[in-house]
């Protein structure tokens, strides 16, 4: 067949196999591991099916405590994230607060900061005795008791919230940006005070976004591994994720790990279902209208206290942790003042020159980051394209599958992949491939959401025009759609890349000494207490992250927190 004779044939588009293949890949990433997970959780030695593992994990008081701890952690992180994220969003979106740009940039920084680095930094800031803040507190007040003890449940909630509230912030700031001021003004004219307006008009309008943000924050807290491992274990308590991880310790109890994973999986799925319901009711005329005007609310005398509060939050989230990391990286003993005699570059030479594992881990991390982001960005672009253009029967299923991995917490995904890929026919454990699969699966939903927005933003009319002129679907994709979708696809790439280089909760179960990544090396060093080297590697990871953020902002022409338009 020559090029000239090619004509579009409706019904027999030859791109169809491409979509089917993509759908199959998804099924393979999800169905096989999860199938194994369920199967192993009910497996019996010598064959047969048993619920013994479920009974074992649910009857063990220590495991029940871990379950309870996780619920307490997640609930309070959800509430605290609203308490911090909602006012910040309102202040930066709707008021005349000074320094809004700075605050927004800092929220973004907190959004991309690996939570386990934050937790590690807070060990140095608020360890009850040696922590910098507590040392200062004692010197100032002369008291014996510490200001904060970070190795407690409230301490853990505090630190996790610092890196989780941006999820609430994003949900809310983007909703607030869409609410027209008319209703609020009407209420004001009718005599409602500023607070009255906020409570009776604005609040109901943003309630779905609030609930949704709460659920997102809860999900983050449920799935987190690094922060509880760093802050809860020293205090002698487990969460579900650290408990699942410790099931892998010798002698391993993989069946129990599988059985303990499923409650977490179900809880996540349930919460997302609720979120979908809540968001699904978002039919307000007032939200979503672009035409209405949004007037800035004058804060008056409250401007400065409000700014101070916002900056205080961001100091806890960014300024103090980054500062103490830098200090630890440059000092011989992190708890001592940074005097000339304590100043050293030895941590850098140790990390980058002496310790061979670092270079290999950085290379692995970058390789995985680039590979996952590239394959992922192309995959989500194809999937979003097929779903938004309704190209195959059951395109809704494609969208559903692409978003489905969001219900799988990293640790659970890792357990499933470990089980599925340490046995024939696919022995991938010990290779970078298993980490690649884990990252790809985990990042798929984020990337897909980004791509979906991109393709929705490209009018189908342009593609139709190309088709009328005789181009095939793939050619249109290349010549018309791809150029328009370019910046959106690069943004998806960056999102995935950032997610991959900081990934810990799945990596910690799937790595082998030959396939270590940066986050795992940091965790290894943490277990041995090598603070200086951790700080150096942590700062390296942050530098990589912010370079990617900068790239994305350049491409998008806006920051990554913004509403998808």
């Amino acid at each position, binding site marked *: 067949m020559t090029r000239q004779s090619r004509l579009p044939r409706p019904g027999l588009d030859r791109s169809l196999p491409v979509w089917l293949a993509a759908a199959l890949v998804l099924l393979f990433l999800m169905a096989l591991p999860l199938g194994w997970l369920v199967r192993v959780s009910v497996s019996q030695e010598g064959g047969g099916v048993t619920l013994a593992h479920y009974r074992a994990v649910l009857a063990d008081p220590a495991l029940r405590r871990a379950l309870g701890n996780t619920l307490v952690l997640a609930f309070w992180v959800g509430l605290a994230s609203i308490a911090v994220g909602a006012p910040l969003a309102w202040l930066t979106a709707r008021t005349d607060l000074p320094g809004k740009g700075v605050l927004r940039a800092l929220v973004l920084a907190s959004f991309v900061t690996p939570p386990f680095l934050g937790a590690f930094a807070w060990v140095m800031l608020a360890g009850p005795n040696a922590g910098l803040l507590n040392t200062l507190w004692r010197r100032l007040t002369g008291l014996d008791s510490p200001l904060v003890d970070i190795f407690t449940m409230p301490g853990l909630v505090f630190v996790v919230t610092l890196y989780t509230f941006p999820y609430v912030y994003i949900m809310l700031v983007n909703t607030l940006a869409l609410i027209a001021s008319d209703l609020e003004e009407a209420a004001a004219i009718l005599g409602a005070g500023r607070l009255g307006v906020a409570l009776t008009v604005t609040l109901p309008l943003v309630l779905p976004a609030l609930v949704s943000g709460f659920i997102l924050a809860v999900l983050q807290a449920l799935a987190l591994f690094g922060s509880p491992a760093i802050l809860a*274990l020293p205090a002698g*308590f*487990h969460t579900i994720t650290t408990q699942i991880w410790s099931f892998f310790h010798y002698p391993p109890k993989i069946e129990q790990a599988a059985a303990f994973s499923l409650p977490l999986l179900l809880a996540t799925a349930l919460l997302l279902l609720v979120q979908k319901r809540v968001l699904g009711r978002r039919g307000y005329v007032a939200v979503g209208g672009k035409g209405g005007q949004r007037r800035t609310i004058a804060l008056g005398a409250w401007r400065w206290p409000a700014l101070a509060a916002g900056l205080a939050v961001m100091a806890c989230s960014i300024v103090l942790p980054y500062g103490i990391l830098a200090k630890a990286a440059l000092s011989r003993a992190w708890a001592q003042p940074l005097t000339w005699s304590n100043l050293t570059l030895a941590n850098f030479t140790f990390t980058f020159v002496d310790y061979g594992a670092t270079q290999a881990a950085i290379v692995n991390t970058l390789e995985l980051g680039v590979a996952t982001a590239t394959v992922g960005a192309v995959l989500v672009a194809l999937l979003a394209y097929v779903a938004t253009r309704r190209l195959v029967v059951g395109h809704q299923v494609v969208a559903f599958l692409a978003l489905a991995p969001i219900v799988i917490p990293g640790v659970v995904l890792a357990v499933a992949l470990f089980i599925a890929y340490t046995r024939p026919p696919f*022995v991938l454990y010990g290779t970078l491939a298993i980490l690649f699969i884990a990252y790809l699966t985990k990042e798929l939903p984020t990337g897909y959401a980004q791509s979906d927005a991109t393709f929705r933003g490209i009018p189908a009319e342009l593609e139709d025009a190309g088709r009328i002129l005789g181009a095939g679907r793939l050619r249109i994709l290349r010549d018309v759609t791809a150029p328009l979708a370019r910046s959106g696809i690069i943004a998806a790439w960056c999102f995935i890349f950032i997610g991959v280089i900081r990934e810990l909760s799945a990596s910690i179960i799937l790595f*082998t000494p030959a396939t270590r990544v940066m986050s795992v090396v940091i965790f290894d060093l943490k277990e041995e*207490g090598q603070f200086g080297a951790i700080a150096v590697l942590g700062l390296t990871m942050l530098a990589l992250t912010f370079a990617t953020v900068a790239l994305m902002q350049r491409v998008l022409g806006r920051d990554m927190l913004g509403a998808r338009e």
Partner: protein
Amino acid sequence: MRTTWCLALLATLAVAGGAAAQDAKLVDAARKEGKVVWYTSLALPTAERLAKAFEAAYPGIKVELNRTGSERILQRVMQELQANIKTVDVIHTSDAGHFVMLKDKKLLARHTPPGVERFPAGFKDRDGYYYGLRATVNAIAYNTRVVSAAEAPKTWKDLLDPKWKGKMVTAHPGYSGVIATHVLALVKLLGWDYFKQLAANQLMLVQSANDPSGVVASGERPVAVDGGDYTFYQIKKKGNPVEIVYPKEGVPLVISPTAITAFAPHPSAARLFTDFSFGRELQQLMADSEGLYTGHPDVTYPADKPKLSELKLLTVDPDELLKRNEEIKKRFVEFFGA
């Protein structure tokens, strides 16, 4: 340093008599293999130093070092074998029970480094599969800025005093072989009840037996209830306000074996590396700069460290350590919470 080492090697070879040709063959074969993969629980900077010394002595043979806690090493080795991954050449942990098990499972290669016949009995496997590379004892340590010598704990039982509540740190037997050995030794001396009472003092839990030294030095917790004494010694030498106490009831002795795997992908490099690490020079290096004890009879120790012979040593039987491995981890977690 390399010349000295070569001279030492020559001397050894002369004693061995006629083994020189064989040894050159080993070096050649090892060079062809190009590297040795070493899973070790030796403190990271110490392990790096040892690896660098080997690489300097044998240019062209790289040491691929993977450091983590003893119990994690066993976990990794077994997980890899389950997936049929064979990467590790030399295994070195502080849990002697591991080596009993690995030997029983036929996962170790028999290899006797030259000179180890002169080591004390506790350092040698009677079947010739593994040998103690180094030894340490568990000790108590405290921060001298916070705790005076007079009020410092002198015995293991002193740590049960409620005045230490919230002021102590322990490492974890689920991570560290040094601590697993320590727990068993003290259980045999004082019973599990001791740990139950100790846990009532709300200890901070860290993982590695190297970590309590850092925690005490920083002042985060002024007292460490366990930890390799060599890590305390090193941090004290660096000028940190740390003092070591060797309780009179006896100190748990931890002899950390090393062995070559039966499936080693680099068997010659593994043998060369093992022989090198049992040589006088390396054993002396561990004693001098790291404050470790060794089984080598010719090694001299820093004057400011007690001799092993001056200490009342609590030893544990590797077989028992293996048999009670799960019990140790389980009960510790039960008492301390995680």
